[in-house]
């Protein structure tokens, strides 16, 4: 039987390393990608995913099962960490450096995808969360609504608007490159 995140968390708090490893395997990849989509930087994403789990290990963790799922909590922590890094000037510098050789050279390998990262970062936060969770993390509208703590219809409309903004932003680039949808 598959244990829930919350059960693993309770065991982990008692010092069960196997439970922690399972939780990490289950949630870290998505958390890393989420931070990567928000920040556009692989280095920042690694740091954010790592720090989110450090927060979970720490004595002063603020996770409370009664207030929501562990997954939602981890996404929230990651979102805040990215925000904190954005406030710091280091984030901007990091993105510039990373975009120069890390993302472009090693990960994105394309001007359009780099532009897409930039466009996602520039979306309003609620739209960005919706499109990242639904279109990049492939969550259903229901799952995203739980994670974002809002109504399903709100998530859907945010996804539509986010996609419209992204498409508008990328259109000139795609047309100049001769990319066709069909």
């Amino acid at each position, binding site marked *: 039987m598959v244990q829930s995140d919350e059960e693993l968390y309770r065991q*982990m708090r008692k*010092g069960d*390393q196997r439970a*922690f*490893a399972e939780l*990490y395997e289950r949630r*870290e*990849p998505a958390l*890393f*990608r989420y931070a*990567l*989509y928000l920040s556009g930087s*692989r280095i920042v994403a*690694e740091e954010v*995913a*790592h720090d989110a*789990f*450090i927060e979970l*290990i*720490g*004595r002063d963790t603020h996770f409370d099962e009664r207030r929501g799922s562990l997954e939602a909590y981890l996404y929230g922590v990651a979102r805040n960490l990215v925000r904190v890094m954005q406030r710091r000037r280091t984030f901007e510098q990091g993105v510039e450096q990373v975009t120069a050789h890390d993302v472009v050279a090693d*990960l*994105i*390998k*394309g001007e*359009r*995808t780099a532009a*897409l*990262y930039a466009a996602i970062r520039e979306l309003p936060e609620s739209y960005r969360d919706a499109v990242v969770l*639904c*279109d*990049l993390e*492939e969550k259903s509208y229901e799952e995203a609504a739980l994670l974002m703590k809002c109504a399903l219809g709100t998530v859907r409309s945010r*996804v*539509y608007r986010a*996609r*419209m903004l*992204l*498409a*508008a932003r*990328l*259109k000139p680039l*795609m047309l100049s490159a001769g*990319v*066709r*949808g*069909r």
Partner: protein
Amino acid sequence: MDCRNWIVEVVESARAGLQPDAQLQKHLRECPRCTDRWDDEQRLSAELRTMRDAASSRSEVRREAIMREFELAHGTVMRRSVKLAFSIAAILLLTLALGQVWRNHRPADTIAQNPGSSAPGNEFEASVLTNVPEDDDFIAVPYAPPLAPGEFIRVVRTQLRPNALARMGIYVDASLSEMPADVVIGEDGFPRAVRVLGDIQF
């Protein structure tokens, strides 16, 4: 159905990577605005898929680092438990030590008052002392170190000079020569109590 309703179909089909159904295809042929949107959505979905595939990443280094952090955090908890256990053990040992000191002092007092009687917590000496002749005239030697629990004692019958008795705190007529006495001696060889035999005037 107007374009606003068709947009839902357009977006959801593009997101799912599906081709438009017959009705939507018919509408797309008739509506350039929706056709444009369909092309945009298709391109965007393709780009998002590329982005998603590129973002997949597993790092053993990251995993090892976080596991070390976990062990460290858990180790700290263990160290706290060990500290607590040591503190409790230290308190217990201190309590036992104080108890022993208290018990060691009590028999000495008891011997001083009544060397032949049993002293609580010091039964061994007491049992030995009870084998001493029953006339119970032992006098504790002042300032002698207390007997340890379980320490053996010997009762030695000997001849003592008055000055030797005086060193044990017993003053007799200095003109007397040696006199017979029973001396209770601890394992360390120090006298703890003395009983002068015979008819002596103190």
